[in-house]
């Protein structure tokens, strides 16, 4: 997966994420067109039966499709539907503050790590006051589907120990392929950062 963030002179912006899914997609090459084919249907494997996990609903919720409750399991089609698009972690996003005259154009790559990485970059930038490069470069943590915490190499050992003391279980992830690209506008200044994890470099004028 790859992400591009762009800010134009007039303040218009684009956040775009593109993918062929896992590295090299389906590993199918069309020699006459030079195109590598995706394996996006693999993401249908993560599609979960509706209502299989329901957060305890607020008291006013009536359940059903519009609420926090379950959609009856009987409506769950087990086979892929022609034309269906598989679920995705891609989150090309734009944050705008009219009051501050600020924008943050952001998104990421790295499969299931995308949301974790983007959340932490946004937190670091908007709430913890890090500059954009530091916000993206800071090591991240991720929580796997079994609730175990995974830490990017060089993540603070002190925090890891603290979380262990709070009862969090941890596990190892062989690869961290999280990559975030962002452009921030703050008044008349424009900051652009491509994640050094993938050797990227932003450009502007």
């Amino acid at each position, binding site marked *: 997966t790859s992400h591009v963030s762009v800010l134009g002179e007039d303040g218009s912006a684009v956040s775009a994420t593109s993918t062929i899914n896992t590295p090299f997609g389906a590993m199918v090459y069309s020699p006459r067109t030079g195109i590598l084919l995706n394996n996006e249907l693999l*993401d249908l494997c993560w599609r979960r039966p509706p209502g299989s996990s329901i957060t305890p609903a607020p008291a006013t919720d009536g359940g059903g499709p519009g609420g926090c409750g379950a959609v009856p399991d009987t409506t769950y089609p087990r086979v892929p539907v022609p034309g269906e698009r598989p679920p995705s972690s891609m989150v090309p996003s734009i944050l705008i503050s009219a009051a501050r005259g600020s924008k943050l154009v952001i998104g990421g790559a790295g499969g299931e790590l995308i949301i974790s990485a983007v959340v932490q970059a946004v937190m670091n930038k908007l709430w913890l006051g890090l500059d954009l490069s530091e916000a993206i470069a800071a090591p991240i*943590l991720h929580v796997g589907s079994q609730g175990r915490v995974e830490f990017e190499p060089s993540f603070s050992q002190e925090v890891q120990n603290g979380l262990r003391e709070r009862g969090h279980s941890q596990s190892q992830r062989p690869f961290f392929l999280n990559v975030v690209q962002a452009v921030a506008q703050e008044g008349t200044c424009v900051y652009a950062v491509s994640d050094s994890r993938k050797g990227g470099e932003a450009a502007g004028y």
Partner: protein
Amino acid sequence: MACGRRATLSLVLLGLALTLAIVVLAVVLSRRHTPCGPNAFFRAAVAADSKVCSGIGRAILEQQGSPVDATIAALVCTGVINPQSMGLGGGVIFTIYNATTGKVEIINARESVPANSDPDLLTQCDRAMPLGKGSQWIGVPGELRGYAEAHRRHGRLPWAQLFQPTIELLRGDFHLPSILSQFLNSSFLRPSLTTSSLRQLFFNGTEPLQPQGPFPWPALAATLETVAAEGAEAFYKGRLGRMLVEDVAKEGGRLTMKDLGDFHPEVLDALEMSLGDYTLYSPPPPAGGAILSFILNVLRGFNFSADSVASPEGSVDMYHHLVETFKFAWGQKWRLWDPRSHRNMQNVSLPLLGEELARHTRQQIDGSGDHRLSHYSLERTWDHRMG
């Protein structure tokens, strides 16, 4: 006397006017030289995942291209520099902010299920993990129709101009990019790659092409030239599409020309979530914007700041809340069904955007991190590594 008084008054007024002019000039100049820091730009910028593609995007902006033009040019380039990540055989999602109208729209050109896909496909998931190699997993590529729709709505430069820099890159002295080289040399990927049709592109026998060595890719250069000249329809209804479908069929794929012809990107409003001073705009399901919005909205309620992480205990506390929020959020991922194909799923993501569920989630988070999985609705989940 009167004459002298008038002269004095004129002098005073002139002095005042001069002072005012100096003050205004000073303010304007100081604004133009606001200390932005050494790495700042003043007008526009592009952040792609390689220097060369960010540069191509910047050049398009400097030629008066729109941000959408620059994005398309940078993406076309990225398909060449990082082909392991994306390309014309994939799909794309745009979030586009128009500063003139103040509107934010989504163009979703994510790949879709072909008409003749294997009905038993999902019984093969376990065997296919983790790489998902094989033609049965190919979705209908949406990339180029996504570009075409974005360009039709927001493009400023001619379509062909967006492809030219990458065509020149490929037709010139193109060398194997270093990140691609790392992937080709990965001991995890290499056995699969050498037994796939990608071997003819990236390997010399069983050895990957040399890092920074010559990397000829004439077929892709020709495809880009055709798309630049004839438009995306050459791929979806023309000769390029037919060649692609035939090549895929040779590897057992079920993609058809009708699948390509029937593919249409979706244009829709962005999800909108207020986060204090900021409004977050992100793509709705099947993309992950609703989950991102939910997480940030829950976290916003904890009022984290630089002071929160000033001490080690504060830092641990913040990350504890983050981890707990992630656990609750993953318990909600089932809501990311494609609402276009599953009408009964159209509104299931709405609670993620409401304050009610966010507040309820905050109330569920205490000082402990060892709750049972059912506390987070994670007890029946399985891996969800969707990309």
